[in-house]
């Protein structure tokens, strides 16, 4: 749709504002995989409450918007559970081994001209593009 890019910029601005608030307020980098991972493996136990509260906002606001606006929201996630499980495992392993995902390396890293953030972003976009092209256009799995 032709207005998607406006919503993209606007939504992106809110994401960046969230990252700015988290950085300037708490002095922390807003990386989703780090915030979640520290809870999952217990490495972030000392800051567990603020991580949980962050996640409550991250789940809560979309839920409120979803209910209040009546916007039809679907994730269109594939119903193929094998693909979903494989993807989840890869995302979980990859983001923790690389120490960051789209928000940490992408948004927060690139904006401070971090070489690691830029290199990570190039590699996950390339890997994502190649995987999608192979699985969709060559193998026809997704």
């Amino acid at each position, binding site marked *: 749709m032709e207005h998607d890019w406006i919503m993209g910029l606007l939504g992106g601005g809110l994401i960046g504002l969230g990252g700015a608030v988290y950085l300037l307020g708490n*002095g922390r980098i807003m990386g989703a995989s780090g915030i979640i991972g520290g809870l999952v493996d217990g490495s972030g136990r000392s800051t567990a409450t*603020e991580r949980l509260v962050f996640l409550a906002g991250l789940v809560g606001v979309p*839920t409120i918007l979803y209910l209040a606006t009546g916007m039809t929201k679907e994730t269109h996630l594939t119903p193929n559970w094998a693909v*979903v499980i494989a993807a989840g495992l890869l995302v979980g392993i990859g983001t923790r*081994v690389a120490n960051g995902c789209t928000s940490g390396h992408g948004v927060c890293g690139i904006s401070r001209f971090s*070489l690691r953030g830029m*290199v990570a972003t190039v590699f996950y976009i390339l890997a994502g593009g190649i995987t999608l092209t192979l699985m969709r256009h060559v193998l026809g799995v997704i």
Partner: protein
Amino acid sequence: MRLIVSLIAGGLFGAGLFLSGMTDTTKVQGWLDVFGNWDPTLAFVMGGAILPMAVAWQLTRGRRPLVGGEFPAPPRHEIGHRLIVGSVLFGMGWGLAGLCPGPSIASLSYGGIAGLIFLGAMGAGMLAAPTVGQSLDRIAAPA
């Protein structure tokens, strides 16, 4: 106070992901689908997010976090095997499903069973990551 900051930041992140359409896997996969029906939205989202973040990094100079503590150390520069291999594995999963960690959580209330299964698998992957990382270190170590 740290908790209020966390709640506001998480809420803004969630609102941005919701409004930009980034919890819709067809839009994310559309960005990666260069040989299909390419969708540039993700680039606008990234650009829109990086701008305020770049201003925020500039504002950290000579200041301290409002609620206390320290700002993160300057970025490290070493490009190791963990960064590269981890990012490639993450990208493969991202391409397969069109979900990364932020949107997978943000869509919890409307993502259905498949979304929950993704979250479970992602959690299991996160638990397995230290073992995978150590295996990578052994492979990468000079013999």
